[in-house]
């Protein structure tokens, strides 16, 4: 059912309900809109204060703060970016995020495509095994993954058996390690391609196209909405994660944005101005992605379907 018929149906159903109860149309609507406005304001108020604080000079930040600072300043932003090395962290998070987007868009999407279009004996069992791993708690895999990252052979001073060095610990490679293929993305890709037409591939096959060619030039161009959702989930997942980067990195050169934020807390007396500026900076990229892809976010999450 498409969104438009769904909302027409809902409209008709609610019109029917109103008629039966004898309410004037719109009377209850006004009540619920007022309630909604109230809740929405409460939900969003903290963000308004964050933005306000981020422009409030240090001297004004103590004592009662007003929502509109008397002398707005960008000092907090320069402090956050240069003193707290947030600039470097932004770059690290962007690199980690983009690599993750690339590997997921290729490997996870290719796997999901094969699960849907090129079935092989045992494909269902393998598929369900892979996606069930999405439910494993982080705490269970955290310690083994840490030891595995340390034991990757031939990197970070390790010998061929993964001994002797620090492996991928404290490198961006180590930060990326758990995200290269996210099981959720395999699931989304399979769902998408299950409803893609088989005939296109058959026709290309008749013309002698290879399977890889069929994937890249016939089906991938159809899959733009899927790619968008996979890219968004991969990027925001990595950008927002805290616990894994916290354990796998130790030096400031490889810290991610979220870690850089937490570093503000380390020095005892928290300076809220720069901290809030940092919070704004760390949030804006994800917020922009969200604002431009609200439909992908909300419908991709809610029905798991990624149909255009």
């Amino acid at each position, binding site marked *: 059912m498409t969104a438009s018929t769904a*909302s027409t149906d*809902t409209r*008709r*159903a*609610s019109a029917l*309900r109103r008629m039966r109860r004898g309410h004037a149309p719109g009377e209850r609507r006004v009540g*619920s809109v007022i*309630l*909604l406005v109230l809740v929405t304001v409460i*939900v*969003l108020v*903290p963000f308004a204060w*964050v933005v306000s604080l981020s422009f409030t000079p240090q001297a004004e930040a103590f004592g009662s*703060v007003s929502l509109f600072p008397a002398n707005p300043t960008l000092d907090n932003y320069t402090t956050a970016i240069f003193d707290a090395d947030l600039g470097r962290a932004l770059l690290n998070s962007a690199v980690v995020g983009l690599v993750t987007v690339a590997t997921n868009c290729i490997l996870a999407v290719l*796997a999901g495509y*094969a*699960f849907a279009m*090129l*079935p*092989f004996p045992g494909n269902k069992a393998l598929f369900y095994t892979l996606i069930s*791993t*999405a439910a*494993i*708690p982080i*705490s*269970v*895999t955290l*310690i*083994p993954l840490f*030891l*595995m990252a340390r034991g990757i052979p031939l990197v970070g001073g390790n010998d061929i058996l993964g001994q002797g060095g620090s492996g991928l610990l404290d490198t961006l490679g180590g930060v990326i390690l758990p995200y*290269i*293929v996210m*099981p959720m*993305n395999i*699931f*989304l890709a399979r*769902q998408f391609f299950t409803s893609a037409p088989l005939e296109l591939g058959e026709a290309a096959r008749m013309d002698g196209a290879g*399977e890889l060619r069929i994937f890249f030039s016939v089906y991938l161009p159809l899959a733009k909405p899927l790619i968008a959702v996979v890219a968004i989930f991969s990027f925001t997942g*990595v*950008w927002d*994660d*805290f616990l894994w980067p*916290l354990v796998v990195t130790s030096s400031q050169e490889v810290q991610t944005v*979220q870690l850089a934020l*937490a570093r503000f807390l380390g020095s005892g007396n928290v300076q*809220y101005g720069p*901290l*809030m500026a940092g*919070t704004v900076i760390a949030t804006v990229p*994800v*917020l922009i992605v*969200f604002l431009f892809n*609200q439909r992908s*976010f909300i419908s991709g*999450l*809610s*029905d*798991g*379907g990624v149909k255009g």
Partner: protein
Amino acid sequence: MTSATIAPPGATSAPGGATPPPPPRRRRRWSRSAIFGLVFVLPAALYVLIFQLVPVVYGLILSFTTYSPLSRSGPEFTGVDNYTDLLGDADFGNALLVTGRYVLQVLPITVVLALGLALLVNRPFKGVGLFRSALYVPHIVSLTAVSMVWLWMYSQTGLFNEILGFFGAPAQSWLLDSDSALNAVSAMRIWKALGSNMVLLLAGLQSIPKDLYEAARVDGAGRWATFRYVTLPGLRPMLVYVVAMDIIYLAQGFAEIYVLTQGGPLGSTTTVNYQIYTEAFQYNQMGSASAMAFVLFALIIGFSVLAVRGVMGRQK
């Protein structure tokens, strides 16, 4: 390691049964296309097996050992000692209680409020999309960032004390008092989880076939009866999913604890996940930390199953 969700129920089969069965595919064994299928799946499958499933087995083995990553000698097998030690470990018992209380005081409130909001934004009116998106924003912002926001709100000169001051009440040390710290963290998580739960429940509401409402109307059902006998049963699959996912997420609370309270004061906000982190990465006790992780894992599975049964009710 990601915060990616597993798929909601609507994804595999729509609660209303609207998804047509997939078309039959060719069934030849190991045809040319089957070989290509396996080859295409292999990189992703091997990766997930090595970096998602192997760690579970590895972690289980570690949980029966004593191991410090600083020592160059490998893990030393100690049988079930880690688990029996946990039985008498007051700190771990406290962490379990804190985690349980955390889940129990966030989950019901956030699900009920989210359901109310979902019902409100399920009505079509101009600008409803704006409300849906606005309420979803706290979910978009990372847990670390929203924790920073609430850290300020709970601070001595923060928003909550400003409001108290406005009414002439004395300022509170929300996060520094062991009676109120966990409640303060819980309030933040309720606020944060509201939007995503609302969106999921909204999708659940919209998947309920409209003719059921029509039928209820014909039968003369009132508003409450319609909610009780049409909306709630139709919403069950999504409700199950929401409750199970919330339990899984909340029981693993970490970033918000790290930012807001560091597990304190007096361990009053030390969740199991926070204790696992300190045990493994500050005290370097990888073996006992793994045992804690598996106890948590078992409890999460157990309570999710219980909650799912509870939500499904007597339905068969």
